[in-house]
């Protein structure tokens, strides 16, 4: 998977390249709108991450010209402004997603993955298996080492969310949104409380700990380090 990052802030571009590279993606960086547009037209990219405020050509113009040139790669906008009309404008021009600075890198990674998956064929899943954890999505049942876990509906949702994204750090905001449909990012320590309760049922009684806290970022479920 190859990604183009068009971003004039050197620091931002650097950490994006590093983080996305470490997540297994190939990243090219362009420092201004014109160079970015050239690169996007020369090469095939699976995703373009585009800053709105750019020298030479701004993000809107880059997007417009890209679509005019027939490039259909998904575009994720990054911006420091988040007025609703700007968001709407981005989507009207053909952007696929939108992220407001400052953002959590885990959040960006999750969105990038979801955009890349959109282009790849979805695979139907009925069962998830991570180490000794088994989740039956159809019957809404989870077991560890063959032992049935007594979970509430929300706890089951939380566990299966983490399991579906095994190895990915999920931010508290994303978790609150996916499990409780809470679309605001205040008071996210409520998520901590709920994860702790899930852990007391799904992790604490077992020697192998699956759910790990990533300080300042969120939670990840993985078989081992």
């Amino acid at each position, binding site marked *: 998977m190859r990604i183009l990052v068009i971003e004039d802030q050197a620091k931002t571009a650097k950490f994006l390249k590093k983080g996305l590279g470490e997540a297994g993606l190939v990243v090219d960086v362009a420092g201004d709108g014109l160079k970015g547009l050239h690169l996007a037209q020369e090469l095939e990219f699976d995703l373009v991450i585009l800053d709105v405020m750019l020298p030479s050509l701004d993000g809107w113009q880059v997007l417009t010209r890209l679509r005019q040139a027939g490039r259909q790669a998904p575009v994720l906008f990054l911006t420091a402004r988040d007025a609703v009309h700007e968001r709407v404008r981005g989507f009207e021009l053909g952007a696929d997603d939108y992220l407001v600075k400052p953002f*959590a890198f885990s959040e960006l990674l999750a969105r990038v993955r979801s955009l890349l998956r959109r282009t790849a064929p979805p695979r139907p899943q009925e069962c998830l298996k991570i180490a000794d954890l088994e989740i039956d999505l159809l019957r809404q049942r989870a077991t560890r080492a063959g032992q049935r876990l007594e979970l509430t509906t929300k706890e089951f949702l939380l566990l299966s969310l983490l399991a579906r994204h095994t190895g990915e750090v999920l931010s508290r905001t994303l978790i609150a949104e996916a499990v409780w449909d809470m679309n*605001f990012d205040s008071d996210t320590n409520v998520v901590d409380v709920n994860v702790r*309760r899930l852990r007391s049922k799904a992790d604490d009684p077992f020697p192998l700990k699956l759910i790990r806290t990533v300080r300042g970022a969120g939670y990840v479920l993985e078989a081992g380090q």
Partner: protein
Amino acid sequence: MSWKPASSVVPGSRLWGTLAFRLTAWFALAGLFLVFCATASLYLVLLTELERSTDLFLTDKLHVLRTLLRERPNDWDALREEVELESAARRYEHFYIRLLDERNTPLLTTPGMAEQLDLAHFASRTQSRPERAIPMWGRHGQAFRVTSAAAPVGSPPTQTDTIQIAIDVSHGEELLAHYRLWFWCVLLGTFAIFPLAGYQIARRGIRPVEEVAATARRISSNNLRERILPEGYPFELASLAGTFNDMLDRLEESFNRISRFSADIAHDLRTPVNNIRGEAEVALARARTIDEYRDTLESCLEEAVRLSELIGNLLFLARAESPLAHLNRERVDVAELLGGVREYYEGSAADGGISLSTTAGAEPVIAELDRTLVQRAVGNLVSNAVAHTPPGGSVVLAAKAKGATICIEVSDTGVGIPPEALPRVFDRFFRVDASRSQASGGTGLGLAIVQGIMLLHGGNAEIASRPGQGTRVTLRMPVSGSG
């Protein structure tokens, strides 16, 4: 009369635009009109009174002559005395009498009458209107009033004579001319004096307004404390000054609020930035283990997240106050929304030993709201309630519809808020107990955001609290955006 064009004589609309000029113009116009009416009516009264006294005199003379002719038809001496001598004895207001017989032959004439008057003209003018006094000009340009009448002679009358009487009224005319001159002088004087006096009066009346304006000009953000002294002004302007001062009070209050707000922002931004900077500096001061670096980085990340949340909240508040703020309204089942919020906070409540429940009315409460924003408002309230309720307490969410308004209530049995702090709890960065809230990670913006969301929905938030017994926050908003 040429005072009327006062307004059209004005060179431009600029002058007409000044209040002093308008007042002066109206004052002068009204004054001139009144003086004109007064003098004109006095003149008319004088004129009619003069004519009436002349006419009475003529009637009187006629009566005397008729009586003489009837009672003593052949007493020529008496008649002559009456016609010739009496008139000659007068210095002013000479009158002339002529007696004619049936065949219009003059019998007796006051000497000099023919010199003064065109007698043929006299006869022809008075013939059609007997016994009525009419004005006539003499041969030398003097004004006369003349009359003629038939006088029966003898008793019983056997024949008819004609009496012609003319009286010189030029003296009265002089008097009237004198009056007319005075009249014009008075009008001219009025025309000169009224605008000047009016202007002075207008200036005097407007001066307090100018003083108020001058004070207003002096006031800027640096001296918002300055006020207009309400003493010494007439009642209307005192109330204007009072209104103005009230406005300044409100301005000063919101200005202070904003300054306080800026200071609070600076303080709240400074703390996490300071932590990031200090931790990074200390970490870099010498070589450390990987675990130590990781710990530092993680701590920095936490501070950065705190900063991001703070910035996000501040931006949200700024946008909520913008007139361009946009709501994403949709049909929302409020009871269901409350249920969702309850589920989210259930874990935290259970951890704190608090019962968290929703009570729903008999009917579903449906409204057009921005789901995310209302969720956020209720979430903030529940979060506060759970944080400030001791174990064993309870937090209850309730929704009901009252006509076109829906009501969401979040009540707890928590520690409550002291009465003196209640009016300020919706202020940004206000914390009832600064040290404790800081430690629990609150930004002090939660309730400000709740209020911002209610304002966006055209509703309001109210808080009632008793220390030691609990707090109840009520959110009220219209069922739909259009209403």
